[in-house]
């Protein structure tokens, strides 16, 4: 539980902090903002470029665009944004939900009835992620062709579920492990049934961990750019394909490319910003004890 509180207590830290000199704070603030600006700059510059005209976009560094939306209009005209956007949403959410449904019981049992093998199983699960995807593309393409899964949302959802499942199990496991076993025992003493134990005791404590696992997995699924590009043509193609239709055409159209890129990452970026506290809470992978 320590994790959670400390993760949230930066505000309290501020108040508790002893005699923080204002000068110290100003210097730290300046340094932090500078670093943050540098790190954020590529994204900022991309958004700025998307608001420029094409000649402006390659006319050298210029942080004040002419605020034209012409690139966005052109992008939307060439390729409807809504369809790949919906595909991305469905695939990212779908694969995350399925992965959670499979992973929660597994992580629960690993955390509360660990055996000697638990660690090995976890490591083995992670190691399945080390298989180079492109090495199995052709076999998988053939399986997908024969099962009619090519270019379907279901097919992509399945693949993304599988490739992210190990991370999901591990995150949940490390989070569940932080839940003190005594509480469960106490609940058992009180005569709670197993299902009651899970619903009334465990779930409320596990919700933050599940939430951040879910968020991380949505991000990973949204940004997956190998399978989504190669197992879908038109019907299920998500935003990664949307980007591929604007990269390197004839001529340098960086404003349009930036507009398309901004459209592709904006949803997940905004989701990330709004949920960063929830995300951070569980992102420890058991790193904090």
């Amino acid at each position, binding site marked *: 539980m320590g994790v959670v509180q*400390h*993760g949230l207590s*930066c505000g309290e*830290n501020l108040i508790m*902090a002893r005699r923080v000199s204002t000068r110290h704070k100003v210097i*730290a*603030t300046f*340094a*932090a*903002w500078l*670093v943050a*600006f540098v*790190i*954020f700059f*590529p*994204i900022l*510059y*991309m958004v700025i*470029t998307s608001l420029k005209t094409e000649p402006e976009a390659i006319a050298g*560094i210029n942080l004040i665009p002419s605020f034209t939306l012409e690139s966005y209009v052109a992008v939307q005209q060439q390729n409807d944004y809504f369809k790949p956007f919906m595909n991305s949403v469905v695939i990212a959410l779908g694969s995350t939900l399925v992965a959670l449904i499979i992973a929660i*019981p597994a992580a629960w049992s690993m955390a*509360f009835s660990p*055996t000697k093998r638990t660690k090995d*199983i976890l*490591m083995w*699960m992670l*190691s399945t*992620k*080390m*298989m*180079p995807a*492109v*090495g*199995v*593309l*052709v076999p998988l393409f053939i399986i997908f062709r024969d099962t009619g899964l090519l270019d379907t949302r279901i097919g992509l959802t399945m693949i993304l579920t*599988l490739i992210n*499942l*190990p991370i999901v*199990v591990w995150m949940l496991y490390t989070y569940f492990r932080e839940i003190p076993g005594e509480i469960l025992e106490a609940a058992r003493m009180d005569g709670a049934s*197993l299902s009651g134990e899970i619903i009334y005791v465990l779930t409320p404590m596990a919700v933050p961990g599940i939430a951040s696992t879910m968020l991380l997995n949505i*991000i990973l699924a949204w*940004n997956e750019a*190998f399978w989504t590009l190669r197992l879908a043509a038109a019907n299920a193609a998500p*935003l*990664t394909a949307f*980007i*591929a239709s604007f*990269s390197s055409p004839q001529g340098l159209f960086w404003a349009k*490319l930036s507009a398309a*890129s901004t459209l592709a990452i904006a949803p997940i*970026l905004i989701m*990330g910003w709004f949920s*960063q506290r929830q995300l*951070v809470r569980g*992102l*420890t*992978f058991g*790193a*904090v004890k």
Partner: protein
Amino acid sequence: MATRQTRTLARFMMAPAVVLLLIWMIVPLSMTIWYSFQNYNLLNPMTRGFAGWSNYVYFYTDPAFYQAIGNTLMLVGGVLFITVVGGILLALLLDQPIFGQGIVRILVISPFFVMPPVAALVWKNMIMHPGYGVFADISRFFGLQPVDWFAQYPLFSIIIIVAWQWLPFATLILLTALQSLDEEQKEAAEMDGANFLNRFWYLTLPHLARAITVVILIQTIFLLAVYAEILVTTNGGPGYASTNLAFLIYRTALLSYDVGGASAGGVIAVILANIVAIFLMRAVGRNLDR
């Protein structure tokens, strides 16, 4: 305290995940192994047949093979170094009381949300481009010749791009760990007259060991498979200067359509990845058990 019943139940609950992942591992892996012993070029379906070890010999004797392994290690090592050191520094900075902490944190974690092709495109075109990039403009402002990043420092450029994507992840985990360090411990150390470096070396760093382990472990898994950034920016070149193992397999599979050769490469990569994993577990895995 685990009774027989709960143990059975636990197995039962684990089963779906384990079985699915087993299938996910065994089916592609066995197909890869099967194809790695086949002459199979997608564009030349006539030449199918048993190939013996020739695919392995072919892949292993590729002039780019050793360089690709070296580049893979450099890429993983370089990105880990930058993200861990940078992440620690950044975490220390963000742990200070500052104005607008929330916004700073949002800005710093943002690169993590950017999909790899977009990150690579933005860096390639708008930041590192020798003609129109921001870096080139800055060089010209100081009267210097712009650097052609992807021609002169291809691997380094890719390391920068990938490190930029993973720095937020490392920072977040390290920051959370840092914030769990007891305020009292810190204060006590301060009272004892320990200076900042001493405090960092004897108190903070040991406390972060576990978090660093996690960062290294998770990132290594993803970094071994980096290829999209290479494909978008340098295409593995010039020469083989930025070809890593994943990209070499990619080239064999989707440029030559040599399924046999790519499968052999895949098997080799799996073996190497497992060697790295074992090495990693030996070296840092102990931290996780504490």
